[in-house]
């Protein structure tokens, strides 16, 4: 049985309708869409000519609105226009969060549960490498864990403490499991001709962290935390912005520990993008599995794509540049 499909346009329609209503409401509050300098006739007064003297005895500028109430009303309109984009963004985020929490997330969870019941799968066989390579990986994993424990995690906790507006999430997953590392090493030996040591050195997410922000503080928060990581003497190796991605939303970055060149990963997420990532992770695991059929791969990528349709992009996130 195929994945029971939520209609692609369910949430966008609801969110779009809500946003449209909010836009209309905000527009009513802000008045006509033309600029603040446009000549308007208001209920409170009339458009004047330059040098005209009002009843209050004041000389006016061209297009200025006469008293009573004209100045106040125009100031209010200008203020409303200035607040308008932020109001729309806030209402949109509110609607998107609510829809994700109450409808989309539970529906996708149920859909995945049904899919797994309909597509049972035996446990995956462990990756097979020769004994010497396995020893290299085991030793490497011990060294990686030591670096994580003594250097990187303490630094990340210090960085987290510098800003109460976001936090480290999924800290329990900060060390990639030895089985998965073995799998990656086996792949690199087979498909890239690497030694086990080289494959291990190329592994950039054996240690990984996720910083989670509210959408409103995401963009400024990412820039600030990149600066904090640099200030902690970690070297930025790479940063990739995937907010425009279809299968995954967020930003992943790679860093180097100066003491021993160990690489680690920091991901920058919102609550929804992190939950979407967690929700689709089992689908991603199946996509990696060689026994997954072509048709199933289609279903799984479609599932990932549809989940990510419901992840709102924080304002400014698309503009955060890749590095290098």
């Amino acid at each position, binding site marked *: 049985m195929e994945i029971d499909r939520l209609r692609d346009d369910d949430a966008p329609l609801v969110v779009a309708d809500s946003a449209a209503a909010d836009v209309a409401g905000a527009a009513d509050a802000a008045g006509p869409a033309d600029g603040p300098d446009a000549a308007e006739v208001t209920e409170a007064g009339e458009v004047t000519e330059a040098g005209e003297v009002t009843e209050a005895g004041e000389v006016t500028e061209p297009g200025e609105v006469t008293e009573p109430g004209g100045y106040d009303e125009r100031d209010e309109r200008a203020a409303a226009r200035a607040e308008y984009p932020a109001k729309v963004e806030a209402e949109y985020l509110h609607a998107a969060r609510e829809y994700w929490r109450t409808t989309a997330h539970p529906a996708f969870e149920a859909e995945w549960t049904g899919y797994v019941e309909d597509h049972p799968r035996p446990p995956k066989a462990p990756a097979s490498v020769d004994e010497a390579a396995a020893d290299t990986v085991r030793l490497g994993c011990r060294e990686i864990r030591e670096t994580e424990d003594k250097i990187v995690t303490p630094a990340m906790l210090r960085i987290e403490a510098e800003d109460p507006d976001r936090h480290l999430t999924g800290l329990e997953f900060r060390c990639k499991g030895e089985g998965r590392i073995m799998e*990656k090493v086996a*792949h*690199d*030996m*087979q*498909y*890239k*001709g*690497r030694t086990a040591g*080289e494959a291990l*050195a*190329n*592994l*950039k*997410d054996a240690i990984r962290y996720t910083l989670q922000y509210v959408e409103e503080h995401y963009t400024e928060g990412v820039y600030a935390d990149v600066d904090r990581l640099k200030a902690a003497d970690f070297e930025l190796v*790479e940063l*990739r912005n*995937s907010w425009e*991605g*279809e*299968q*995954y939303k*967020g*930003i*992943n970055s*790679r860093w180097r520990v100066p003491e021993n060149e160990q690489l680690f990963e920091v*991901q920058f997420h919102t609550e929804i993008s992190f939950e979407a*990532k967690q929700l689709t992770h089992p689908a*991603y695991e199946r*996509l*990696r599995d*060689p026994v997954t*059929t*072509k*048709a*199933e*791969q*289609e279903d799984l*990528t479609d599932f990932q794509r549809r989940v990510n349709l419901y992840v709102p992009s924080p304002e400014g996130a698309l503009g955060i540049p890749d590095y290098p």
Partner: protein
Amino acid sequence: MPTKITYYAIVDDFSSKDEPAGVLRRIEDDEGRDDQAFGRDLKWGHSPLLYSYERGNMDNQLYEISEDEANQIVERIRRTVSGEG
């Protein structure tokens, strides 16, 4: 749908675009899609690299290349494995 094959050069920290570490292809047809890499056993086998790449994994950079360029990488791997390279 006619079969569509897209090729990618795999570049990691020990290789370059001029001399990639390996080659990957995505095959798409009516049945769905499959990603394969050319192995040191001189066979094409399932590879998760493209899916990982699409989820932000940066262990490797993938560069789309032509079929001719892909064939050159395959030949280089053949020569390396057979000891001619």
